[in-house]
């Protein structure tokens, strides 16, 4: 792939990225969240069709212009996404041949389907009956089904996007062994991974991508691949003045979480949060770093009114006293607020006006005996519009028409109006432009200056480093490290993650 550039409205996701993958090798692609790895692979596999990006793809020495996934698949390029694309209530056999059924004149030949399924399952080392429903088998086995599905399409280049992120150690090892086996059979693989030990153990070469550009390609043979080298390449970027100044004066402990545990709501055997303990002080911004899927959002949501997970146990203390956070309204009453990472799905009622969204979490404050005073409500909304600079002609605009930055400010206003002691901010600046980001950092600083506590979850390490007094590092559901602002660096955070 030569100098691939891909632009989304407002964002340059890939900037002249080049990468060469040899036939028969396992090539690892590493980089931070949002560096552009998945975008690059979507370009390669035709998810983004030819013409929607600049640059050239050469496959087998020929210029390839895929207009869609079916064309790249015909050439043997198969991508397995991080979110598995299996239909949970169909059997393994049905999933393997979905869209590609063994059928004549639209009538499925079940005999042949099952036979071929069995052969494929043997190849990937999965001992399940072809008739088993996919949602009855674990994520590790589902991953193998995906690979079997790729094999059924005569795969030559297999792209795996974080295949082991949801797998246990044992399942991961099994998967990696299978990749080596496929390599011996001549299948080329590109694997996107955050786990550097895995990368080191199987990859022939490693390409590091950062901010939409290729940083380096390292050879395994020359012992070039060391974790430190990779981490340095992954994070090495300058930190200009992107964060407003703040004098930090943390006070007494405001919120304390003790031994917090939670299990996955559907896969009940999976523990998502393990014995998490953390504190937030008055006037302190505390960060939680971690990769996607490490359990940060799950931790926050399970604390905030048990909005996620099952079998939740643990204690939350506010101002030193245990509080009841078992439902959202109780959590709010105890002084918590949670700004969700997905503002459109979970944060806003999009069809409603700014004014109505802002007051939603604290309607009693603008009403008496259950009757809303619209005058008071408008005053409140106008107050926030002016105070935190929501750029809109009036508070009667529906929030669906606002830009991401302004929507985020509406969500923040909603929770400021609920008057919490501790705000949990989950990816507060995701998907908004630099200017709005700076403003939101300013709002956070003002909050802690008023003595509130902020717990900030972010996938952008520079943001955490620029904003936080203290950073917890989370990996696989556990808080694996804690760093003060002085100690913290991207390298140290990354090494906590990749070495835990």
């Amino acid at each position: 792939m030569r100098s691939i550039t891909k632009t989304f409205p407002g964002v340059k996701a890939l900037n002249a990225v080049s990468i060469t993958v040899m036939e028969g090798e396992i090539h690892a692609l590493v980089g931070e969240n949002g560096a552009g790895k998945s975008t690059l692979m979507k370009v390669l596999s035709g998810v983004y069709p030819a013409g929607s990006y600049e640059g050239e793809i050469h496959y087998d020495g020929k210029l390839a212009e895929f207009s869609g996934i079916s064309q790249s698949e015909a050439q043997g390029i198969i991508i397995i996404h991080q979110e598995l694309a299996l239909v949970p209530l169909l059997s393994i056999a049905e999933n393997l041949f979905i869209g590609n059924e063994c059928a004549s004149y639209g009538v499925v030949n079940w005999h042949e389907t099952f036979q071929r399924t069995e052969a494929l399952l043997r190849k990937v080392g999965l001992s399940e009956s072809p008739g088993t429903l996919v949602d009855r088998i674990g994520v590790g086995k589902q991953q193998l089904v995906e690979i079997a599905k790729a094999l059924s399409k005569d795969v030559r280049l297999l792209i795996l996007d974080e295949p082991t992120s949801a797998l246990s150690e044992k399942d991961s090892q099994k998967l990696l062994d299978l990749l080596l086996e496929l390599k011996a059979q001549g299948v080329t693989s590109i694997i996107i991974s955050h786990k550097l030990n895995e990368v080191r153990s199987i990859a022939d070469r490693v390409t590091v991508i950062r901010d939409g550009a290729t940083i380096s390609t390292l050879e395994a043979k020359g012992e070039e691949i060391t974790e430190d080298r990779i981490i340095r390449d992954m994070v090495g970027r300058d930190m200009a003045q992107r964060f407003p100044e703040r004098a930090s004066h943390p006070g007494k402990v405001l919120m304390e979480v003790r031994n917090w545990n939670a299990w996955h709501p559907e896969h009940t055997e999976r523990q998502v949060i393990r014995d998490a303990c953390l504190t937030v002080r008055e006037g302190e911004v505390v960060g939680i770093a971690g990769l996607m899927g490490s359990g940060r959002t799950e931790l926050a949501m399970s604390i905030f009114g048990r909005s996620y997970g099952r079998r939740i146990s643990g204690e939350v203390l506010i101002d030193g006293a245990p509080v009841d956070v078992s439902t959202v309204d109780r959590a709010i009453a105890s002084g918590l607020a949670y700004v969700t990472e997905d503002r459109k799905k979970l944060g806003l009622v999009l069809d409603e006006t700014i004014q109505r969204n802002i007051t939603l979490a604290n309607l009693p404050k603008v009403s008496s005996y259950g009757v809303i005073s619209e005058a008071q409500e408008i005053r409140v909304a106008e107050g926030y519009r002016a105070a935190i600079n929501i750029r809109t002609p009036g508070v009667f605009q529906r929030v669906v028409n606002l830009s991401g930055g302004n929507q985020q400010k509406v969500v923040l206003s909603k929770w400021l109006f609920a008057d919490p002691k501790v705000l949990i901010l989950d990816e507060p600046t995701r998907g908004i432009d630099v200017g709005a980001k700076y403003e939101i950092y300013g709002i956070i600083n003002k909050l802690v200056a008023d003595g509130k506590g902020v717990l900030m979850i972010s996938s952008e390490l520079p943001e955490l480093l620029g904003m936080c007094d203290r950073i917890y590092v989370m990996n696989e559901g556990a808080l694996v490290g804690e760093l003060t602002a002085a100690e913290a660096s991207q390298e140290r955070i990354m090494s906590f993650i990749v070495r835990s």
Partner: protein
Amino acid sequence: MATDTAETTTDGQDRSVSHYLSNHLRDYGMVLALIAIMAFFQFTTDGTLLRPVNITNLFLQNSYIIIMALGMLLVIVAGHIDLSVGSVVGFVGALAAVMMVQWGWSIYLTVPACLLVGILIGAAQGYWIAYWKIPSFIVTLAGMLVFRGASLWLLEGQSVGPFPREFQALSTGFIPDLLPFIKDLFGVERMNGFAVVTGIVIAGLIIWMGLRSRARNRAYGMVAEPMVFFVVRNLLVAGAIVFVSYKLATFRGLPNVLITMGILTIVYAFLTESTTLGRRIYALGGNEKAAKLSGIRTERLTFLTFVNMGMLAALAGLIFAARLNTATPKAGVSFELDVIAAVFIGGASMSGGVGKIIGAVVGAFIMGVMNNGMSIMGIGIDYQQVIKGLVLLAAVIFDVYNKNKQS
């Protein structure tokens, strides 16, 4: 920062008028449609439609649909549907008949008991929908079958009646002329002075409240309705109310059921527009997850909308039985469809979160006037159904088209 200027700005009078119109096209369109339909039938029925007796009939015929539409609007705004209301109408009517005719209960015992039964029915269905997350379509489809069967069983397949006069008055009674001197004042022979005065007072109230809210909107910088629209709309509404009340006055006065319906409409309009409860129902329907994460007890709220629906369906059942003066096993068949159609014609959205009480009422009147007008014209029931179906489809297509155009 430059990317943040994409928000719509209303600069210049022209733009704000057209902007206002495009945002409120639905509201005006519906009222205009009602007027057009009435004008059409007034013409094709040679003036029968707006005769005093027929206007009275229109209210009597549609009262129970409108009363149920109030509850159904809340259910649909909350993102659900209730298919059981027709059967509940039949069941409660049957129950009332058994209580009064066979057991000899007084109406003062029967009515509260029946309303309570309605509440329990709503609670029973709402429980599964709200707390067990069973789709409302399924639960109320089951309820539809169950209560249809239950009313057959209660009545043993027979019609039961007639009812005491007091009970019939629930539907077919009229408010007596409390101000008899007015007709003497004007020297008219047959005119219910109370009805006329009530009409004038209500029309005045509507104009006064419109002016007040207009002033308030202006004070807070809301996009105000252009003056022309405001004047025309209010004159039309006030004129219509005075006209209808005068017509009613020259027949037998204000029907009891019109008063019940009117008060309920005002109560529910207030509930949806001005209370925290109403606001939360819209939030629940607009985005259940966001509502839940804002501390709204979404399950309880869903439960309550069904309890309310059950109560209103029971009330409608009593009124319907009172009107027929007999309870039959077939009572209320397919009422749910009329009610649901009224709510959707009134502009509610299938996906929840959108819809107004006044819209549902106008929607019910559109259906009611069409039923009535087509019957007077002698159009067969076959064509009537086809036409009603097409009107419903057209209203929803208009909604979707409008929404696509806006975004």
